[in-house]
Each structure stands twice: as structure tokens, then as C-alpha cells.
């Protein structure tokens, strides 16, 4: 098991320093926040659906935290564009880690998956599959 070496490859640092899809949407279909108490990461995800109510037209995030959580949010929001809510729901933590393209040390996995959990919880609440919660948390 790798214990964290190599986590900070160029791609991660690039997404951290120049996050894609950063900011708030004017008129999101749904919006949800979450936190990772370990690093103090806080992320809000805004999602705009297409008229079919199923396909993601655009996703954005805001908040702050460590490089892993920020890069992960930047990359995942890119990836979400064009995805259906079912496909979002099918994502698991390995998908996110694959997306990051580096070995995430065990203690940092929570940082990596925060954005995915927030997006999934937001979608589930929007679809009425989950009762509304104020905040998603990784712990």
C-alpha cells in the first residue's frame, strides 16, 4: 500500500491552483453542502439539470479545503457534465480515486470523496429519495 507518496502530481496541483467550475450557479436545480471535519474541508455543489430533469447540464462548486478535496471537486464537476443522475448515483469512491489518477493515502480518502458524497446526497434529496439533511459529512 502506498502511503501518500506521489499524491501531489502535476494534474492535482493544477486543478487545485486553477479550479474548474468554481463558483455559484445563478439558478441551480439543486444545491447541497458538505464537510470533512478531519481537514476542515467545506464544499458546496450546485447542479443545473437539463429539461429532462435527468441529465446534468452544468455543475459548479465552491468552498475551501486541502488540495485533494479541491482538486477532486474540480475534476468531478467537470466529469458530471452530461451525466444522468442515475449515473451519478452509481459512482463509488474508487471512481473518484481513478479520476484523480494518483494513489490516495488511506487517511486522505475522505478528502477525495467529499465532493462525490455531496453531489450524490444533493441529487438524492432533490429526487425525494433521501430526507433533507443540512450538511453531508464524511465522518
Amino acid at each position, binding site marked *: 500500500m502506498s502511503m501518500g507518496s506521489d499524491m501531489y502530481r502535476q494534474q492535482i496541483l493544477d486543478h487545485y491552483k486553477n479550479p474548474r467550475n468554481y463558483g455559484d450557479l445563478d439558478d441551480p436545480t439543486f444545491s447541497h453542502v458538505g464537510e470533512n471535519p478531519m481537514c*476542515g474541508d467545506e464544499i458546496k455543489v450546485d447542479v443545473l439539470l437539463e429539461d429532462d430533469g435527468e441529465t446534468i447540464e452544468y455543475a459548479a462548486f465552491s468552498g475551501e479545503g486541502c488540495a*485533494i478535496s479541491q482538486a477532486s471537486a474540480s475534476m468531478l464537476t467537470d466529469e458530471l457534465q452530461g451525466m444522468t443522475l442515475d449515473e451519478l448515483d452509481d459512482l463509488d469512491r474508487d471512481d473518484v480515486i481513478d479520476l484523480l489518477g494518483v494513489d490516495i493515502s488511506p487517511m486522505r480518502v475522505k478528502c477525495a470523496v467529499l465532493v462525490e458524497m455531496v453531489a450524490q446526497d444533493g441529487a438524492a434529496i432533490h429526487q425525494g429519495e433521501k430526507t433533507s439533511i443540512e450538511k453531508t459529512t464524511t465522518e
Partner: protein
Amino acid sequence: MSSQTAEPFDVERVREEFPILDREVGDGQRLAYLDNAATSQTPDRVIDAMSDYYRGTNANVHRGIHHLSQEASIAYEEAHDRLAEFVGASGGREEMIFTKNTTEGLNLVAYAWGLNELGEGDEVVLTEMEHHSSLVTWQQIAKRTDADVRYIEIDDEGRLDMDHARDVIGPDTEMVSVTHVSNTLGTINPIGDLADLAHEHDSYIFADGAQAVPHQSVDVEALDVDFYAFSGHKMCGPTGIGGLYGRKAILEAMEPFMYGGGMVRKVEFEETTWADLPWKYEAGTPLIAEGIALAEAADYLKEIGLDRIDRHERGLVEYALDRLQEFDDIEIYGPPAGERAGLVSFNLDGVHAHDLASIMNDHGVAIRPGDHCTQPLHDVLGTAASARASFYLYNTKDEVDVLVDAIDDARQLFG
């Protein structure tokens, strides 16, 4: 001070007692263990004390007649005397309760005394730099008893504001619970002055010695505190053990905390009377191997000399502060060198403490990122997290250099 304690000690010889320090981590990096405020490493003789106990003596204590039980009982009971002496408690075992950690010591007093004695209008005084184990415990017990909690503020350099302390501690104060040494700022608090203030107002004072007992010579009677708690795992001892000093008269009067075997005298279906001190506060089969090993750790520290350990650590933290202050992208929390214990918390501009710690780990450097169980203090400091390097008797200036190199690497990566 004896001539022995005036001399520095040979760090390389000290390191030989700690086999873990030779470990390689990651891709063959040599370990630089700078996370001693979280937990210290354990010298061979303490590990051996435990193994020897299990291989030669292991038995339940207090009431056994057979040979092993007699040996175990005597060793376990004497361990209390040795720890009492180690922190200057002249009452011996009667003033030294073994707990599983500092946190349990605080909860013991908060439950056994606080829950029974606090009420509306009473005040518990803490500081802004309290560890969660004190802050959350008193906050919750106060909530349950309708008492109030007040916090002594810190100044810009992380010292207690003693003027504010004099404002806050008053006639309604029933307990002042304050950390002896801050695990985040390195501040050494004036416990004796706070004890005087507390006692002027007929309040008790509880000092949290988790970061003091491992690093400096502590005398609870000179400090004039009513309660004092510490943890074994931060002072070269095992996990799962800590000590709680309490003044004999208070411990005699106080209700017990946990109930069970060992802490009773006579039990009937309808009522129970309590055993003598300190057993009244140690319910169930106690931390036997841990207690014996903790006494070994105390002996070890005493033989090396707490004054020498203190001096060694101050040297390291001064050197670390010097090196870190070379860079203006590093923010350092806490008082200046000379006033602080052997740890330093800081942040590197633009790099989250957790990322910094991950990069350090790639260099073999073990530091701790996060809130160090002082979230409210971090709110005061205006940051969610910090990186903390904390030193102990086996650390070296070379390790500080490796730390600074690793910070430089992070600066390059994120720059």
C-alpha cells in the same frame, strides 16, 4: 540541581533505547518523529516491563492470596506510590488514581464532583486554549447542571490574559480547569497564580498536565492545585493509562465515579460502602500491566532527568523557531522562544496543513496537521488547521533541518 542534571545528555545513546526511531517509512526515508505531543515513543525497558509482567507475574490484584496475585498486587499498588512521588504528591498512593488517560481524569472529576455539586449560578472557568478533553467535558457537565462556563482569553502571542483571568474568576467560580502547557501554542500557564486566584474565591483548580508531566519536573504541591491529570502514552509509557492526582481530603469527601468490583467495601442488595483511597475510584480489574509499565516510564524519565529533558527540548524549539522565522510565508502561533515548551504550530501560506503533512510524510517527517483537539482555539487564531511539530528527548537538530527542507519542498510544489 545536581551536576548530572546540569550536563546535556547524549541523544544518540538515548535513541538506542527506542528501536522504532530506526524505522524507515515510505520509500526508505528515515523516520523523523516530531509528533510527540500526540503520543511519545516507548523505550525498550518500558516495553520489557510489560512483557515481563505477562510472562512472569500476570494475575488479578488486590484480593488474591496466591503467589502471582501477591506479586502483581504489590507491584501495581507500589506503582501508585511511584507516580505520586513523581509529581510531588506527598500523600502517596492515596492521592494517585490510575485512569486510562487524561481525558478520563477530567471526566472523573466532572462527573463525581461536578455533576453532584454544580448548579445554577455556579461558574466553571476554562481558558480559550483548553483541549477538548477539558473544554467539552466541562461544557457538557455545566449544561446538565445549569452552571455557566467562562473562558479566560489569550493575548496576541498566545499567553493567558491574566487581567481577564482576574475578571473572570470570582465569587461564583467553583472550578478553574486549565491546561498547564498548551498542546497547540506551547504556552506554559502560570498555574500557581491561577491556583491562588481560584483559592481566594473558594474555588477548586484542576490543572491538565498532559503536556507538562512528560517534559518538565512537576510538583503538584508547589503548584498548589487540587487536581492534576496526565497520560502515560505521552511520557514514554504505554497507551491505556494515565494518572489523576487529587488532594486527599477532597478525594475522601467526593462521591465515586464508576462502580464495580475493587472500589467497594461492603455490598448488599440495597446499599454499598466504598473502599479506601485510591481504590474507591478504580472500578473493575485495573490497568495492571499498564500501571506497572507507567512506573517504569517515570523511573526512566527521572533517571535521564526532567530538567535535562526540558533544556534539550527548549534548545530544539529555539532552533526550530529560528529556522522557521527565516521565511515570511510561515505563520507561527504561540509565544516567543524562551517562553514556550518544546512544540511549534504553524501554517505555510497557500498550503493546507493536511497537504503539508502529507508532503512531510514523503520525507519521513511525522508531524500532526489539524485542530489538535483545540477547535475553539483555532477559531480564535482564525484558521481551521495548523501543522504542529513537537519534540521530545530523542529528537535532534538534524530532524529540524529535515523538517525545514520538507517545508521547502512543499513551497516549491505549491508555488
